[in-house]
């Protein structure tokens, strides 16, 4: 929108710098869509892999509310200032100009990015968690004010069912429940920087007080929209990490976390992210400076805790059946015994994997 761009360069400082940084990192090796998908958090292995390849992991899924059109306008804005130039006639690939390099070097991107943004373990479930959290807060506020009806901010069945279950299954009285939750949220927000906490909480809805959209927070505070998104995501990620590290301090709020991923140890979670980005176990080990055995341990843990992860690369269905047949026939879980019974070419790791997969079911 012309209106937006006219506001002045100060208001856009953050978005400009961020976009210039991403363009520099991508270095014209992907189209602009690649950058857009990164920000949107597209669930394709390409996008996830790109975030590793170009060392921009923190920005994956930074703004799932980003409209293609606003992204395009921002790119055009950069072009108008001659900070970027197009590499092809279709104008799909761009790199920085000298002027753009100068502009970018004026700012330290590392300093602009809050630490919380770098916590990427929970990125796959952060949207789900955030919706649940907002709906739970809205529902508890309605209970607290004895409101008989309210318009929920989301009707997405997976979210409403989860929130419903958490409330119904609690043994506390409604009133205690609200207070318990209040204290947990308070504790969580106290643990993060105040600016992030304010942006985070401004989006909460309660009794006759509907939360703001990020766009509104940006308008009201005069902060760049991308900056607001960044602080929000940093807060969200810090909170998810705190919840998963210190479950016992937040018995109620921790229920909002998806068990599949939060159950994973942090280090296995990191390996999982590498593996999901398309790296092999060997490459992941190299990247993380760990032994292949450790990564295999992680894979076994993943098999146990994240049944959605595809392990066929390490263990075919056919081999899995063969291992389990032997294990069941011999009625043992002893690796050595099973290995002996099987012909050559089957590793201990594969047997552990098969056993892990089959404990789950």
């Amino acid at each position, binding site marked *: 929108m012309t209106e937006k761009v006219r506001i002045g360069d100060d208001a856009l400082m953050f978005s400009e710098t961020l976009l210039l940084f991403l363009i520099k990192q991508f270095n014209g090796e992907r189209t602009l869509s690649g950058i857009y998908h990164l920000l949107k958090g597209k669930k394709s292995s390409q996008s996830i892999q790109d975030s590793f390849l170009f060392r921009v992991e923190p920005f994956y899924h930074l703004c*799932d*509310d980003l409209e293609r*059109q606003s992204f395009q306008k921002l790119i055009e804005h950069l072009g108008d200032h001659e900070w970027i130039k197009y590499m092809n006639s279709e104008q799909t690939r761009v790199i920085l100009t000298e002027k753009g390099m100068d502009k970018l070097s004026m700012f330290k991107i590392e300093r602009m990015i809050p630490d919380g943004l770098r916590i990427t373990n929970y990125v796959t479930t952060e949207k789900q968690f955030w919706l649940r959290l907002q709906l739970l807060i809205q529902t*508890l506020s309605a209970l*607290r004010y004895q409101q008989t009806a309210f318009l929920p901010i989301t*009707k997405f069945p997976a979210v409403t069912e989860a929130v419903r279950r958490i409330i119904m299954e609690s043994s506390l009285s409604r009133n205690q429940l609200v207070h318990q939750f209040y204290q947990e949220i308070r504790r969580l927000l106290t643990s993060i920087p105040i600016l992030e906490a304010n942006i985070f909480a401004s989006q909460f809805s309660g009794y006759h007080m509907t939360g703001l959209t990020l766009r509104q927070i940006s308008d009201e505070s005069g902060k760049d929209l991308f900056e607001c998104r960044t602080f929000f995501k940093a807060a969200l990620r810090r909170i998810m990490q705190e919840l998963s590290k210190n479950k016992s301090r937040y018995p109620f709020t921790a229920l909002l976390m998806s068990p599949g991923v939060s159950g994973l140890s942090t280090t296995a979670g990191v390996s999982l992210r590498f593996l999901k980005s398309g790296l092999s176990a060997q490459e992941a080990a190299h990247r993380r400076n760990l032994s292949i055995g450790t990564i295999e341990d992680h894979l076994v843990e993943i098999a146990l805790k994240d049944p959605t992860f595809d392990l066929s690369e390490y263990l075919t269905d056919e081999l899995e059946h063969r291992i389990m047949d032997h294990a069941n026939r011999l009625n043992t879980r002893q690796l050595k015994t099973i290995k002996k019974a099987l012909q050559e070419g089957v590793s201990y790791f594969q047997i552990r994997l098969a056993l892990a997969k089959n404990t789950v079911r």
Partner: protein
Amino acid sequence: MGSLNNLREEDLLREAKIILKEKFGYHQFRSGQQKIIQDVLNGRDVFAMMPTGSGKSLCYQIPGYLLNGTVLIVSPLLSLMEDQINALRAAGERHARALNGMMHAQERIRVLRHLEELRFLYISPEMLCRSDIREALAKITISLFVVDEAHCVSQWGHEFRPDYLQLARIREQLGHPACLAVTATADERVREDIIRSLELHEVAQTIMSVDRTNIALVVRNVSNDDEKMEQLCKLLRTTRLPGIVYCASRDWTERLAELVRRQLGLRAAFYHGGMESIDRRKIQNQFLDNQLDLLCCTNAFGMGINKPDIRLVVHFHFPATMNAYLQEIGRASRDGQQGLAVLYYSPQDNQYPEGFIDSNFPEDAFLLHTLHELDEGVLTIKNKDQFLNDLQERGSSETAARFIYERIREKPAYQSFHSIFKRSKSMIEQRRRVLLNDLSIMKNYLTATECRRAYYLKVYHEDSHEKPVYCCDQCGINLADFDSVNFEDTVINRKQLMSWEERLSYIFKESERSKQ
């Protein structure tokens, strides 16, 4: 209606009035409501045409408290269902539920398990066509069979829903309860269709005027967008709010919201279909909670929204049909107080409604792509609501999605999806012609030199009756009479931004807890 026989008619009416007051907080019936409710309570089949905002839901909600059994309300609009149930719950009614395809299966099971406890059950026509649901319903007593948006039964209407053709048969299977068919708009042809196809016998009809006499009508001619924005700001500076500004495009909603916020310091926000659904929800709820003075929106806003104290509806661009226009201005002052509708017209605006007309139908490329995805099995039509949802997420309008769905349903099983492309295209052409005719009626309203009200009443074949004091610009109107200074509104102007501690403590009512 055995239980009612011993109650005389006036007793029933007295009971109805008590419920009106105690449950819904109104002191008297609005025009039309009383006769409809009496007819319903007498067990008659009833056809009612009531304009948007004239309180049609009360016509079946009040009988719900006087009849034995469950009132079944067939409604095609999910948002409307939700809003109505919400309003009922807010009025203390716990036995109101919905059944529709967008619900979690678990929740559907919960509803079915407690069917007989329900006083009100809202149901989508698709759900009602399912045999398991019908069997469950056949086991309970249906006191009244309400068909909302009854014009959907007619092929003459623009919103024909084939599922509605099954309703007469289903009503039989449910023990032939009395039927109340309601709609906001239906010409004579459509009315006849409704009565015939729903098999209404000795039907009691109440046809209310489409006229909303408490809304004053103003059309302002301007020469360009700048002049429009200038005039809009001038109007908003003094006129009584809250208000809605309808725009033809998403860009304009954003632009105007920003303009108004910066220039006038009003609490303004925008709302359009391109936003994340949670953001749309938030803006809508803020407007309902009086956190906003002005909402700049596309026609995506409004369906199923019940806010009785909207005082101003502005059209920054004019809509494509008289019907849509009346529907949109009908959102003003549902509480019966004086409302104002202002439409700005500049000759350049003629481009927009054509766009609206197009949005009723899928573009060729989209249609082709969808049919391709269906043939490939990427998309399925197993769950209708899901399918409609999928298409909308791919950028289709709801009407266009429904259009595609209907074409697919007519397709013989042995043919590929792709095979219906040509026929669909010719149907689009045919319907487009009808819509262009509607558009010309709307355009004539803008340039008419007679009374605006008289013009649209003529469109609906109604005679003009008594002119309201504030009629229209042609009859003479002074906009200053609508200035907020003339009214004693109390506006709670809570700040939007606050510290997290302040916000949290309010949301969980913690400040009071410490005092307890």
